[in-house]
């Protein structure tokens, strides 16, 4: 097992280098120089200062040298300083925003699993029933629904018209004066809409996937054996079939990480949530290059970490993977 994890970690190294290379290329695609925004927009800046900035960001050196230097700083987790007026370290800015985004995404995954798994199972065992057909239609509508549109409509309906839920931020104005229980419920109320919206897109995909997994497993011989030896149907479905149908879900969870992180830009912007997505959007709007590069790399690393966790979880859950020659 340890060897398997070690091997997987080694395989991540070329991926990490590739990620940094692509991030670097993307940023350098832009016309002009990263310091233009600071200098050209500001008439007070002297040519001298401009030159100093160029030196500071090594803009006078060839691309490859700059990449090497940047990579060296990345190795010690130094993403540089933000171009924004606060000039804070990108690392600090990202790290303080990260927990909110991760929390919302974890909650969203939880909602997805709790709803999609039972939905998929029932749709599979009652194949072609009215329930199955209506969930299929709902799934397709869910796939096609623009999440930001749904968010807008729900905000208007629940937040503005009926005033049931708060529509922006994650804390109320009087948050500081609340007791611990009050604080918990305050944050919880603020999170309901964002979590539901970010879960919504994945819900359709996961229930569909669960259904087809279940159908595939039910068709296999060992299910026939279980039925033939007279096991009650609940045990056949709930134990023998379910365990096998759940396994591939782990991989899909790992694969859905980039989509969830990417989606956070949209719902964090809509609901004004101070997370990584909103930070990135603001950074993009201000052309804050160090920040954009930092978040791009961090987003990819998070995805890589998600995939690694999924693979390890799969190996723990499925002895066939653990003991296959390829993994040793």
């Amino acid at each position, binding site marked *: 097992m340890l060897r398997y994890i070690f091997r997987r970690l080694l395989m991540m190294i*070329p*991926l990490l280098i*590739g*990620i940094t290379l*692509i991030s670097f290329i*993307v*940023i350098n*695609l*832009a*016309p002009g120089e990263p310091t233009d925004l600071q200098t050209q927009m500001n008439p007070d800046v002297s040519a001298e200062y401009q030159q100093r900035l160029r030196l500071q960001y090594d803009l006078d050196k060839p691309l490859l040298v700059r990449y090497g230097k940047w990579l060296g700083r990345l190795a010690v987790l130094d993403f540089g300083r933000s171009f924004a007026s606060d000039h804070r370290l990108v690392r600090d800015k990202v790290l303080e925003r990260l927990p909110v985004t991760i929390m919302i995404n974890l909650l969203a995954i939880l909602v997805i699993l709790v709803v999609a798994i039972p939905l998929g199972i029932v749709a599979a065992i009652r*194949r*072609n029933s009215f329930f199955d057909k209506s969930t299929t239609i709902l799934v*397709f*509508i869910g*796939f*096609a*629904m*623009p999440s*930001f*549109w749904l968010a*807008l*409509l729900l*905000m*208007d309906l629940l937040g*503005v*018209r009926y005033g049931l839920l708060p529509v922006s931020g994650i804390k109320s104005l009087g948050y500081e004066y609340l007791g611990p229980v009050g604080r918990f419920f305050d944050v919880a109320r603020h999170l309901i809409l964002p979590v539901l919206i970010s879960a919504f897109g994945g819900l359709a995909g996961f229930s569909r996937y669960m259904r087809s997994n279940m159908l595939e497993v039910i068709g296999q011989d060992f299910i026939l054996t279980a039925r033939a030896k007279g096991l009650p149907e609940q045990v056949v479905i709930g134990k023998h079939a379910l365990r096998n149908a759940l396994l591939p879900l782990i991989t899909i969870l790992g694969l859905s990480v*980039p*989509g969830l*992180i*990417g*989606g956070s*830009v*949209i719902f964090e*912007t809509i609901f004004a949530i101070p997370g990584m997505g909103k930070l*990135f*959007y603001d950074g*993009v*709007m201000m*052309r804050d290059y160090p920040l*954009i590069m930092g*978040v*791009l790399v961090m*987003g*990819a690393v998070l*995805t*890589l970490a998600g*995939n690694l966790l999924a693979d390890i979880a799969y190996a723990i859950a499925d002895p066939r993977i653990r003991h296959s020659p390829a993994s040793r």
Partner: protein
Amino acid sequence: MTVIWVQQNFIARMLRNRMAVCGGIIVLFMFFLAFVAPFFCQDPGAIDVSRRLSPPSPAHFLGTDDLGRDVLTRIVHGARISLLVGFVAIGIASVIGVTYGALAGYYGGKTDAVMMRLVDIMLCFPTFFLILAVIALLEPSIWNIMIIIGLTGWMGIARMVRAEFLSLRERDFVLAARVVGGSDLRIIFRHILPSALSPVLVAATLGIAGAILTESALSFLGIGVQPPTPSWGNMLIAGKQTLGTAWWLSFFPGCAILVTVLGYNLLGEGVRDALDPRLGD
């Protein structure tokens, strides 16, 4: 003869699938809107300040916006934008994905290992982050949007085509083509590729739906298709401010996105089932 039989069989299976037919009708209708309707509609930029924010009525079926422009007319014109973005973006993604996957799968071995590593790397990026970064650094023109959606969307197709090529290249007809002296390029594109294209068709149809959604999300964030060109995404965001008083401004463009994406998804799934009856439900 067999080809004709297979085609008839394919069409027959498509027509039997009620959901696929629905999807096809929606897609055809959107084509109709995009190509024909603009000739019958008025100018989407026609401003009529006396009719600002009027609710749906017989004169303006879907109401008017804050400049008195007819929402229905703008949605019809927006259909052209959505269609254009969807097709061009997925066209780019398909050409890259098919070529890349074909080369990796055909040559196999080390070439394949290195080429597929790049795919793994690209798949690590949250696509939306990558798109956002590039669009913001260049400028949010419709062409940049199509190109960047295409450049970030080819990996899935490349993986599929590669898998097809890995199995197809072992078949006898490839050996035969090689024996008669066919060059690698000829074998790849003339002999193997036609057999490997059907999964691409499915992925491309579903991809168009994804591209339309991505464009609308970008427009929604204000870095997609720029006003006054009407796109469903930027109409939707324009209506955000007046959602409480003039719901039709955001509601109908959203419906247009929903229905169109639904259409492509249903059609794509239908094509998949018809191509491979074993998967059919």
